[in-house]
């Protein structure tokens, strides 16, 4: 059983009832194997965030099915084993880090004891020691990204969705995040993330999917794909592959 299975996912929007519908996703198929790191690539507006919103049940697909560990994504219970970090920090700025983690834990039905246990661990994991009582409105973008990752991990999820997690982080932060993602993989978790920063992605992902104009144009193991397209083995990288794919 795959961690995530998306079959024939289509979605179109109508921004105003007078306008025609614009199609965002056309028959998208994605399979994410358990215990792997999946890189989700695409230009801005390709439909990455829309796909993630469909997985989270924030929007309803026009047709197609999404299964998380075999359970339909429409069901609320499917989200019990998900951790989600959004592209921009959408958290309550009148709460501090501890309260944010506590709220996140309570919404995932964790007990108070479990929340205290986990949040101490997570604050050190994301590197916010000493800042946990500061209100989020005083946080910088990078710190918000850290607390965002923290709240996504509070319920010890098996499947972690990260939307552009590297944006806004400094080089050290990116290194730390890469390490965290790899350690999650080591714990047997599945990570699904979208990013523009190909260098970071290349270092950690197992599989990739490239989304172009709402369609998956390439999906598979990164190693195989890079190998397959080899002409000049020295300089060929994910970046070359991506550029070739989207300009085709």
């Amino acid at each position: 059983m795959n961690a995530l299975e998306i079959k024939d996912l289509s979605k179109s929007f109508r921004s105003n009832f007078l306008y025609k519908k614009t199609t965002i996703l056309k028959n998208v198929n994605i399979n994410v194997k358990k215990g792997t790191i999946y890189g989700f690539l695409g230009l801005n507006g390709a439909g990455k965030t829309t796909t993630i919103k469909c997985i989270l049940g924030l929007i309803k697909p026009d047709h197609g099915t999404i299964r998380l560990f075999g359970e339909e994504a429409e069901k609320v219970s499917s989200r019990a084993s998900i951790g989600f970090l959004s592209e921009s920090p959408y958290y309550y700025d009148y709460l501090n880090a501890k309260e944010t983690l506590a709220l996140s834990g309570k919404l995932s039905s964790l007990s108070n004891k479990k929340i205290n246990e986990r949040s101490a661990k997570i604050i050190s994991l994301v590197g916010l020691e000493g800042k946990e009582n500061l209100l989020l409105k005083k946080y910088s973008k990078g710190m918000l990204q850290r607390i965002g990752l923290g709240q996504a991990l509070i319920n010890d999820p098996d499947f972690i969705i990260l939307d552009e997690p590297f944006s806004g982080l400094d080089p050290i932060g990116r290194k730390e995040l890469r390490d965290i993602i790899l350690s999650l993989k080591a714990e047997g978790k599945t990570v699904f993330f979208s990013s523009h920063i190909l260098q970071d992605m290349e270092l950690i992902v197992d599989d990739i999917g490239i989304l172009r104009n709402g369609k998956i144009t390439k999906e598979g193991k990164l190693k195989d794909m890079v190998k397959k397209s080899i002409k000049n083995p020295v300089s060929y990288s994910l970046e070359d592959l991506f550029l070739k794919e989207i300009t085709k």
Partner: protein
Amino acid sequence: MKIKAIALNTFKEAVRNKIFYLLIFFGIFFSFSSKLISILTIGDTLKILKDIGLASINFFSVIIAVFTGINLVYKEIEKKTVYFILSKPVERRDFILGKFLGLALTILVALTIMISFFSIFILLFSGTFDPYILLYFIFLFTELLIVISISILFSSFSTPILSSIFTIILYLIGHVIWTFNEFKYKFINPIEKIFAYSIYYLFPNLEKFNIKGAIVMNDPINIKIIFSTLAYGIFYVSAILLISIHIFKHREF
């Protein structure tokens, strides 16, 4: 449990905003200022004290209800914190109910503070406690629950400015719609009649919660009126919340 977490978070948001305290302060300040105005009257100063006090509590609590109601629900969508909530295993129904209960708690706290200051003030002044003030408190609270449920309904599909306008208009209509009883016999045509009566029964009828006059004049209030008023409030809130849940469930973010 999840509803409680959302409700407490909503309450936290309201009480961590300075405007909340400012409004409560004004409510208390104006009800105390009635002492100054009562100096100007001749005769029954207690009536003046009660009138001004109850009116200022009413006014400021309605403002708190309308604006926190709209602000706190719409902000979730505007600032996209709703993604944070709904990406967790949380039913949309629980979100609406949690928001409602959080707002209700906020109003309850504000109202309790204002009413207790006012009761102590009246107690010090007249030496007696008026049990009708308690009834007024319950009625006003029920009315405000209707107001916040309406503001949640509008915020679940509209922008904050439109929602505040709609809520305030409905609040005002709610206070004049009882006049329908004075000209309902003029509708003879059955279609007009059905139309007029359905509007009358559909719109919130809020004037019945206003028993300020009865309190000040020590008018006895019919027990049937008390119960039908409270039942009306509970039913109305339930109906509006159910519609809000329906809309919110089918909304895309």
